[in-house]
């Protein structure tokens, strides 16, 4: 655990230090980039529980990310237009805690539905099923005109959080960072708990899990629900960062990007998505400025990780995982 702990701490300090420095240097755009990295890392942390620990390669996590985004968009839209929500005669809201709660609940319910329907299959079939659900949600959003259809929904002012001025880039960053750290801490506990052990064992040897009287399907379903809820929370934050949500958040490319973040950083490693998101946002920013074809470089980096560094960036820096606690 020793070396990985140090790498993790360094990543946490880096992600916090860069925007603090940017604030001091008067570079708000760098703060926005760091916020983007923190939020994408959060989405990746959600995915990593399913993909890394559970071995469930979901190509549909954009569903939860986009669902969180639309939870924000729809609630804020009704609040800023002073119209009630369609099904229940309730007003919208500009309060982040309420929006997050709705996003988390929605993500969990959607993950329960998709998981219940797809977790009986495995391997390529599971990947294809999650992709199919993702495409269904994408086309549903594109074709329903109420909330902007293809054009998406814009929010005039970023939503609020009690005691903070979320319009200040640094304060919004610190909020996203705090959420990320809290979720990583909770994930560490879950991974070390009996449930976490069982989930990891279900990936490595499902027959063993049966033999100790547990059913892999239920464990995986619960992991998928937690995973979807966390990714939906990230989606709500991401939409708030951009003050905009559109079907692209639901696209399969977004699902792919989340997988890239996890794989680049280190599958099943606690801080893998943090490393992956920092790397992705940095590449996107610097290479994206040089050439439109920066994704070729990303592809090459990904290939290198898959071929040479199975543990991703964390694996390259901290070595093999030390399983013992």
């Amino acid at each position: 655990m020793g070396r990985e702990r140090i790498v993790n701490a360094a990543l946490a300090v880096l992600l916090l230090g860069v925007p603090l420095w940017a604030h001091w240097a008067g570079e708000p755009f760098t703060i926005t980039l760091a916020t983007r990295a923190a939020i994408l890392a959060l989405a990746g942390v959600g995915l990593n529980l399913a993909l890394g620990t559970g071995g469930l390669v979901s190509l549909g996590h954009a569903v939860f990310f986009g669902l969180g985004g639309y939870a924000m968009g729809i609630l804020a839209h009704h609040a800023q237009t002073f119209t009630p929500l369609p099904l229940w005669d309730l007003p919208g809201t500009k309060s982040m805690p309420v929006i997050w709660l709705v996003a988390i609940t929605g993500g969990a319910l959607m993950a329960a539905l998709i998981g219940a329907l797809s977790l009986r299959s495995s391997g390529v079939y599971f990947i294809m099923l999650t992709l199919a659900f993702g495409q269904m949600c994408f086309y549903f959003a594109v074709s329903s005109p109420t909330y902007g259809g293809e054009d998406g929904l814009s929010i005039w002012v970023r939503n609020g959080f009690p005691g903070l001025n979320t319009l200040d880039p640094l304060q919004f960053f610190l909020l996203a960072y705090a959420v990320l750290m809290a979720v990583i801490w909770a994930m560490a506990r879950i991974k070390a708990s009996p449930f976490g052990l069982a989930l990891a064992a279900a990936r490595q040897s499902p027959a063993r899990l049966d033999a100790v009287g547990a059913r892999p399907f239920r464990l995986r379903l619960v992991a998928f629900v937690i995973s979807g809820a966390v990714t939906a929370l990230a989606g709500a934050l991401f939409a708030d960062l951009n003050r905009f949500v559109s079907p692209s958040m639901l696209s399969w490319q977004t699902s792919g990007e989340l997988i890239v973040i996890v794989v680049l950083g280190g599958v099943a490693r606690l801080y893998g998505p943090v490393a992956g998101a920092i790397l992705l946002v940095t590449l996107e920013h610097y290479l994206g400025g040089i050439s439109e074809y920066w994704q070729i470089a990303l592809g090459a980096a990904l290939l290198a990780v898959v071929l040479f560094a199975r543990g991703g960036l964390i694996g390259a820096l901290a070595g093999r995982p030390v399983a013992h606690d």
Partner: protein
Amino acid sequence: MTEPGAILEVTGLRKRFGALQATDDVSLDLHAGEIHALIGPNGAGKSTLIGQISGALRPDAGRVAIAGQDVTAMDTAGRARLGLARTFQISALAMDMTVLQNVVLGVAGAQRGLWRFWRPALRDPALLAPARAALARTGLTGEAATQVAALSHGQRRRLELAMALVLRPRLFVMDEPLAGLGTDGSAALTRTLDTLRVEAPILLVEHDMDAVFRLADRISVLVEGRIVATGPPDAIRGDRDVRRAYLGEDGP
């Protein structure tokens, strides 16, 4: 052939793989305090039978009962909860996890304690104490922190047994626990198995004839999916059909 009071009762089991009748009208039982060995040549259908008893395979016909309860329609996890502990011919262990983590998983499963999300499993004394006891019994105490992938074959076989011990089962079903152990390892594990029958009876599939004749209270011989003889070791040793079908051509 089966009588009331048996902890395991198998009646008229049949299983077909395409043209192959892998299990052909098999009936057998297991009583408290005994080791019932199941022997037979390679491909006789021993693992297939174990699969149907443990719930991994569905029989085409017949009935399996544990302590008088019909479990034919029950899945593997359900049978494990009723007290059936199986060991695998090919180790089924979580390779990336440590020895202790594997055994703690078994303890948590036996205690129905897997649905706990917060407390670190390796800091829970209620999980650690039985896990460490099982490791001590199988001689794995020194390997507690070793990753399973780094264990030797013999150590993995012992961990297989430890995983069954922590379930505190009503019966053991073991598929070749001694396979590939070598003389010393085999002798040591044979002694461990010998002490186990008082805790729970064992249905033992094993190719090691020395161990089988030392341990077994009863032996059943399976050939081409059929039980051709059942009886105490001496009777089996003297059975001409058995010698011809099995011991003579494929024996030790």
